[in-house]
């Protein structure tokens, strides 16, 4: 292979083998990808640009354990041409990877006080590395709650793992669905309703929020009315991305580039943008 000029390297995917594929939901799989020896070191919240050969490239968050960089773990929901090709990959197939890109969740801020992890649907994927990080150093944090909502029970991601957390004492888990299904005995309603039921000391609490934009807006509002400081509410934004490195202009969000200034933002840094339509 012609060695890429170091200048062009950030724009050229490396082709790594898929080690295993785990079906999570009807439309969602988790790929375990094999980076070269040394692994892919990343921070919780960062994403990669994944290429399906000859089809296209899309941004996908890393959903694995930052403490285990020899496996690159990414959870992908099939919604269109590229994501459906990626979710159809089999072990041994090659996938194009660039990254990791973007900033991470402000985990440093969270130490020493209560933590709320609020996720909607596939939004749990970029937050799972946060939970892994907290669990490896559990005593550094106060009460930790995962508030997770999905459209229906069959849309809840990582249920086996969640059941494990529910059985333990490290994380309080509260689940909800927009609409129940036979066999669902849990709560029905939007994820913001869970905030009232979670136990946390608002002063000093850090909240990490990821889900559909509308869900994040209402979560921010509910957290603020519960007394959480705007500066301590972090959200992960989504915009179309064609480069991941600040060159293509697609991911602009007001004065920000989601790929290089985000994807994680503190709500206090984007007050004017939060409620503005079509930014």
């Amino acid at each position, binding site marked *: 292979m012609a060695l890429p000029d170091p200048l062009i390297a950030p724009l050229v995917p490396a082709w790594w083998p898929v080690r295993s594929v785990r079906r999570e939901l009807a439309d969602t799989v988790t790929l375990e990808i094999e980076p070269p020896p040394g692994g892919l070191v990343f921070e919780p919240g960062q994403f990669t640009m994944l290429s399906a050969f000859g089809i296209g490239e899309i941004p996908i968050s890393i959903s694995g354990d930052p403490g285990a960089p020899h496996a690159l773990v990414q959870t992908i929901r099939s919604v269109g041409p590229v994501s459906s090709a990626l979710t159809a990959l089999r072990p041994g197939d090659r996938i194009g990877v660039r990254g990791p890109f973007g900033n991470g969740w402000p985990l440093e801020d969270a130490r020493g006080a209560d933590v709320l992890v609020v996720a909607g649907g596939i939004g749990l994927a970029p937050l799972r590395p946060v939970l892994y990080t907290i669990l490896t150093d559990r005593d550094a944090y106060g009460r930790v709650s995962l508030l997770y909502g999905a459209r229906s029970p069959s849309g809840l991601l990582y249920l086996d793992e969640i059941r494990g957390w529910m059985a333990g004492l490290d994380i309080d888990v509260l689940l909800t669905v927009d609409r129940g299904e036979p066999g669902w005995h849990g709560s029905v309603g939007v994820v913001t309703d869970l905030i009232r039921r979670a136990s946390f000391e608002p002063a000093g609490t850090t909240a990490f929020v990821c889900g559909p934009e509308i869900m994040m807006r209402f979560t921010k509002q509910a957290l603020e009315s519960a007394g959480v400081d705007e500066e301590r509410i972090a959200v992960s934004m989504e915009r179309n991305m064609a480069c991941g*490195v600040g*060159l*293509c*202009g697609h991911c602009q969000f*007001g004065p920000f580039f989601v790929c290089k200034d985000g994807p994680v933002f503190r709500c206090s840094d984007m007050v004017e943008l*939060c409620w*503005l339509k079509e930014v």
Partner: protein
Amino acid sequence: MTQRSATDAAVVFDPATIDLLIAELSDRGYTVLGPRVVSDAIVYGPVTSSSDLPVGIRDRQDAASYRLEDRDDDAVFGYVCGPQGWKRFLHPPETTLFTAAADGDVSFPPPADAPLAFLGVRACELAAIHVQDRVLLEGPVADPVYRSNRDRLFIVAVDCTEPGGTCFCASTGTGPAAGEGFDIAMVELLDATHRFLARAGTDLGAEVLAALPSRPARSDDQEQAGRHVAEARTAMGRSVDLDGVEELLYANAVNPHWEDIARRCLACTNCTMVCPTCFCTTAEDRPSLDLASFDRVRLWDSCFTLDFSYIHGGPVRSSVSARYRQWMTHKLASWHAQFGTGGCVGCGRCITWCPVGIDLTEEVRRFRDTDLRRIAVPVAGPFPVEGGPR
């Protein structure tokens, strides 16, 4: 690059010397690009002699209007600027970034052979190159294509003495005299004797100038050039007050005037295609027929398309008003936060080439007239939006 003082080595030569300048640059290995008349427009492309240049031609530009006319003199640079700027040579509309083979092998297109020399770069265009330098070279990742085209570039700038109907570089502070960053800058003098006053901006520029027949500039040459350029400053077809425009546009994000613009705007993307600072691109993977490899091709893109902001579920900016707001707010406001410089150099192309004649200088005035900070009843709390809190 060492920038020299503007008057350093100022010389005067006659119009025939332009041919020698082109020859000197070609001899040094440059592909010389300059203005030519193509399909009734000034288009920048390869030039080999002054017979390629638009001698005796002027352009008349106004909102949604562009015409070439004969001049009654032999001015070489007697037009304002071409519809398509120099951007297409530094940041090409279509580039193959790499070819990937199914076995994991990656190859790259051969690098461009000859370095480029631009002949006839206007002050606003030079400023636009500096804006794109900021955007494409000074971020966390530099653009490799732009870098290789830009690094070896030779720039011959020409100060403006006859600005056009849609020009407003005096308002953006980017003209009419070429600022920093040229190798050679010239003023075309059409008084009694047709001649060029030239100054070097770099050592290389001085070396090229020294190879041409010329005489040292006299004070009357300098005085005439200075007067014409100063007059140009007051003869701009458009002007705009950009003082506080960032705050103005941010504060007017929900001004109903955006809807008024949207009723006129066709979302045709012309303004972004002709703008010398617009840099957005998209990527397209083009597989070979046997699927053994694919090319990743980078193409200019525009914030006026629906695809541009498409994420699963639909475009973020579905309305034309949101797309125009994105474009104008980016150019005049958020560009400052992102790159420490404005995104508009006052070239007027977006006004000339808008099929319905939307004029951003006029729209800025309308926002000042309808500024929500002055005339609206203050709304408590966040902006009212769909799905937002009451």
